[in-house]
Every structure is written in structure tokens, then in C-alpha cells.
């Protein structure tokens, strides 16, 4: 019996030839990532368990990316950054990306890719549930809590229960009105938001390998919205090109065996799929955009690790260029690199940044922004009964701030089309 890519990577990192789903193993970790919300408590547990002056197991493998509560006056949030800064100085961490400096990056999952920390065949743990995003690079990556992260910080090791794998095959050619967000919202709607619990979600098929790395990250990012342990896409030449442009560190291409065992398999023909949304208040509350078209909106939001990458804005700009939005529309680049690209890349003779400004959008700084609500002064945060359409990944009650607000999740194309009309709008009706 063959093994899946997830099994093979975990086996290698446990020093074993093979592992089976259900095995509890201890693995060696290649990269540990933390941020400003979970970093300080992780450091607290690390010092409690290993001593105030204990060493990090390998300072070069620890990446700290403050991103969540950056542009806020909240004193507690600012204290968290101070704790990270002191810790990074004390341990001489090369990979600390401080706020207020030229090194500041923005949302961790996007920055991990941009900075070359995502490498095929490696194992990454992060103190953030969307750490599964890195699986787009043919690696094992998953989210953990502070305790597990502190254990890794001290030892470089962690226990893992080897997951079963579900396989999603996307065949055909993606039509221009569909994006990776439509594919993953369809999957989550089909299997339910606990349909992938404890499992690996492996994405395969020509339509997946036609996607750019950024779009692949949208697929793996939301594996957790189906409860998944990790999302994974085998690396190909595009992956290799992306990685080699950013790092000299070693990597290894791993693929699933032809006779690997999958607990579930589903094939989609992307040429027949429709743009979809997740209705409030669950990411699996799927409807086709045409079913909910016409619902009045108060706000549109384009940002986050899943919907604030360069190509997400390029897609939205194609629709907004030369037009005016009818509702408050917040634009929050995931990273400083994305921000820079928005100011450099042009569409119709204008920079993308200018396209958004001219369309009447409100422009934010690179960070998580209002994706998770956050402190009350967070840019784009909801405070009342707003009805929002957003490119983010979660719409649980209160996720964007107010428990009374209602959030629809959709692709950047659908969000931009809806912003133009002030109501949920099928992008096919505005794309020419």
C-alpha cells in the first residue's frame, strides 16, 4: 500500500520508512512560526517549562511575524510587540520582522511564502490555525496552540497523529469569473465545516496546477475551515521557481504514491462550477452567487491571508477600474510586499493603488486588519449590524468585530462586483 504525500513527509521527519493514519509519532520540526497574539504567551510557557534563560532549540528555525494587532493604540496589544522584540533581541533571532521598521512584513502566512520559508518536503508548525496555508508548497504545515509551540521552541519536536487524507481533484479549465476561493468554498460547503476534521486535504488535478502559487495558497488556507489538519498540493515547476527565487535552503519534492489510500475522493469539473458565497455565519453555508444576488450590503472588504494577496487585488481592480463603489469598501493588503506591488503595477495606465482610490475605496496598511475584528480602533472593524461581503476566510458571529454584523465570504471578483452595486452581484454580469 502506497503512502500519501502527507504520510511520506511525516514519516521522514519521524525517522521512519512509513507511517499509517492514526499512528502517534514525534516529528522534527523545520520551521516554527508565531505572531503577536500567540507569541507572547508561547514565550511565557517556554520560559516556565525550560527556564528564564533557556535557549531556543534552533534560533534560525524560529520565525516571528507580528501582524494581527499592529495599527492600534491598544496598550496591551503594543505590549505584546515589546515582548516579541525583547525576546528576539535576547535570542538574536534573524527571522524577527519588527513593526515600524523596513523589515515589517504583514500577515504571517503570506510573508512565510514571500520570504522563502515555505519549502517543499519540510514540516512547519505555526501558532495560527491558517498555518495550513503553507501546504500549497508541497509541505506539511498546521496550526497549534501556545503550549505545543512552546514545546517545539524548547525541543524542536512535537507529537502528531498521522491523518487520513481526503483528495479533491479539479479537472478542466477555470473560467475567468472563477477563482480559487470559489473552489474551496464549494469544497467546504460540500463536506461541511467538520467534514475534514483530523484529516489532510490534498488538492490535485490540472486546474490546481494551472493556478499560480498565490491562488494555490487560497485553497490550502481554508483547509481549516473544513476542520482539516493540513491542506497540501504537491510541488511542481511553478513551486520550484517560486521557492528558488527566494531561498537557497534545501527542499525536497515529495508526491503521493499512485496506490496511496484516500479515505474520500471527489472530482470537480471546474468548467461547470459557479461563483459561490458562504452565507452568515458559517464558512460551509454555501450558496451560488446567483441565489443570493440582490442582497443589500453596507460594506465590502478585500484583505487577509486568503484574500489580500496581489492577485486578489488584481482581480478586484479589473472590475473596479473606471467605476465607483456604492458601499464602504476597505482594501487591506496582506503584506508590505503586496502594498508595494499595488503601488508599482499598473492597469489601464494607473497603479492598482490609484485604481482603488479612484473607485472610492478606503486604503489600509498591510496587516490582518479587521479579518478578526480585533481592538476597537481596527481599520474596517464592524461595530453594529453591518452586512458585509468579504474576501476573508471566516464569518462566525463577531469574527469581524460586532456580533450583530453579518458576513458573506466570496472571491475578490464577487466582492468587487458587489461593491459596485451595493448588493451581492454575480461577477459574470460585470465582467466583459
Amino acid at each position: 500500500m502506497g503512502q500519501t504525500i502527507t504520510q511520506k513527509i511525516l514519516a521522514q521527519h519521524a525517522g521512519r520508512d512509513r507511517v499509517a493514519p492514526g499512528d502517534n509519532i514525534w516529528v522534527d520540526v523545520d520551521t516554527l512560526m508565531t505572531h503577536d497574539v500567540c507569541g507572547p504567551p508561547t514565550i511565557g510557557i517556554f520560559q516556565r517549562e525550560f527556564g528564564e534563560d533557556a535557549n531556543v532549540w534552533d534560533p534560525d528555525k524560529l520565525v516571528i511575524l507580528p501582524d494581527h494587532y499592529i495599527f492600534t493604540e491598544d496598550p496591551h496589544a503594543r505590549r505584546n510587540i515589546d515582548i516579541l522584540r525583547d525576546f528576539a533581541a535576547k535570542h538574536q533571532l534573524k527571522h524577527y520582522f519588527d513593526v515600524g521598521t523596513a523589515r515589517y512584513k504583514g500577515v504571517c502566512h503570506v510573508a512565510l511564502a514571500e520570504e522563502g520559508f515555505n519549502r517543499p518536503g519540510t514540516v512547519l508548525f505555526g501558532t495560527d490555525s491558517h498555518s495550513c496555508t503553507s501546504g500549497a508548497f508541497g509541505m506539511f504545515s498546521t496550526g497549534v496552540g501556545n503550549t505545543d509551540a512552546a514545546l517545539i521552541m524548547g525541543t524542536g519536536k512535537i507529537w502528531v497523529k498521522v491523518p487520513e487524507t481526503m483528495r479533491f481533484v479539479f479537472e478542466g479549465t477555470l473560467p475567468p469569473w472563477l477563482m480559487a476561493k470559489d473552489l474551496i468554498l464549494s469544497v467546504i460547503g460540500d463536506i461541511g465545516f467538520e467534514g475534514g476534521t483530523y484529516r489532510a486535504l490534498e488538492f490535485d488535478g490540472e486546474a490546481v496546477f494551472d493556478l499560480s502559487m498565490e491562488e494555490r495558497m487560497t485553497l490550502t488556507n481554508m483547509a481549516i475551515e473544513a476542520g482539516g489538519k493540513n491542506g497540501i498540493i504537491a510541488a511542481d515547476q511553478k513551486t520550484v521557481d517560486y521557492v528558488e527565487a527566494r531561498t537557497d535552503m534545501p527542499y525536497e519534492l515529495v508526491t503521493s504514491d499512485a496506490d496511496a489510500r484516500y479515505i474520500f475522493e471527489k472530482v470537480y469539473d471546474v468548467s461547470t462550477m459557479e461563483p459561490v458565497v458562504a452565507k452568515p455565519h458559517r464558512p460551509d453555508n454555501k450558496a451560488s452567487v446567483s441565489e443570493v444576488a440582490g442582497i443589500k450590503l453596507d460594506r465590502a472588504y478585500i484583505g487577509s491571508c486568503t484574500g489580500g494577496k496581489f492577485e486578489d487585488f488584481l482581480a478586484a481592480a479589473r472590475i473596479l477600474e473606471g467605476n465607483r463603489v456604492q458601499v464602504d469598501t476597505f482594501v487591506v493588503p496582506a503584506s508590505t510586499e503586496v502594498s508595494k506591488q499595488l503601488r508599482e503595477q499598473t492597469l489601464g495606465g494607473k497603479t492598482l493603488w490609484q485604481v482603488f482610490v479612484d473607485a472610492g475605496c478606503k486604503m489600509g496598511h498591510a496587516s490582518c486588519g479587521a479579518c478578526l475584528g480585533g481592538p476597537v480602533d481596527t481599520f474596517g472593524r464592524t461595530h453594529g449590524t453591518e452586512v458585509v461581503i468579504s474576501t476573508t476566510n471566516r464569518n462566525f458571529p463577531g469574527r469581524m468585530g460586532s456580533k450583530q454584523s453579518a458576513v458573506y465570504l466570496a472571491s475578490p471578483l464577487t466582492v468587487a462586483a458587489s461593491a459596485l452595486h451595493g448588493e451581492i452581484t454575480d461577477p459574470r454580469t460585470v465582467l466583459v
Partner: protein
Amino acid sequence: MKDRIEGKAYVLGDSIDTDQIIPAAHLVYSMTEPEERRMYGRYACSGVPNDQAGLPEGGMPLTDPEAWTSDFRIVIAGSNFGCGSSREHAPFALQEAGIEAVVATSYARIFYRNAVDGGFLVPFESRERLIDQIRTGDDVVIDVPAGTLTHVSSGEVFLLNPLGDVADILRAGNVFEYARQAGFIS
């Protein structure tokens, strides 16, 4: 882990995500400073919509807005408890409020793992859905070795799934103690 966990039940519905258990705006408090960490007990479950808070009636906060800890000891919930964000602040907040165990039909894996590895509370799975059979405020008793939950007023006894592999970690206290005892770390 105690052999017997008892007290008043607090009943919640399905798919209670970690933003509801502890809203993001509260994640800024220190989890170690004694004065500040109490905030997690005060705000535990404050993100649950009012009509869903303390079923079946709703409108009952887990912790009184003026208090630091809750009168409830055991959360009874439906499926996919603790989904969403990986924040360990969620099981921590429940523990700070005084919750010793959660009994749900299923869990999101990161919450489950955090609860166990951090030794915050014991996450039990019930064989059947208890949220229609137990009301907020009812007294319940969990017999850990027997794997049962008793509803005191009716005398009904419900079966819990065995804790399995994680029992060793819960018995050790947390993952560090477990790893030391098992020789994985020194």
C-alpha cells in the same frame, strides 16, 4: 485529572467557535499576570450570541459581567466545539472561568489538542447529543474511570467515549510532564 468532576452544567449549541469562546478583542491580556489573566474568566464565552448563551432559554452569560469566575463547572455542547482560530486562549479562558470539563459530540482538533496538551480542561465526547436533554443550571456528575455522565435530577446516565491516547497526557497534567515522563524530552 480528577476521577470525579461535578457541578452545574452550562449548555451551548453546535459549532461554537473560538471567537465566541473568547472574542479577538480580549486576546491582548497577559495570560500570566494574576490580575490580568482574570479577564479571561470574565469574558469567557462572551462572544456567544445572547439567545444561544445558556440553552435552552439563552440570555445567561457563562460568567456574570461583574464577576471573574463562573458558577458553572461543565460545558455541554453539540458538534464541532472549538472550531476556527487556533487560540489557546479559548480553553484557557474556560479554565479561568472555572470550567473543568467540556462534553460535546465532537470537537475541532486544535481546540481539543490545546485543551489536552495545556492541561486546561478535560474534553469528553458524548455518545449521544446531550444539549436537548440537559438544561443550563442542572447538576451533572462525570465519573472519569467509568466514562459516564449522570444527570442528577433525572438520574439518567449517559455514556462518554473513552479518552484513548490522550488520557496519558491528561493524567500527567500537560504535554511537558507527559513528554518528560515518557522520555521524549529531558
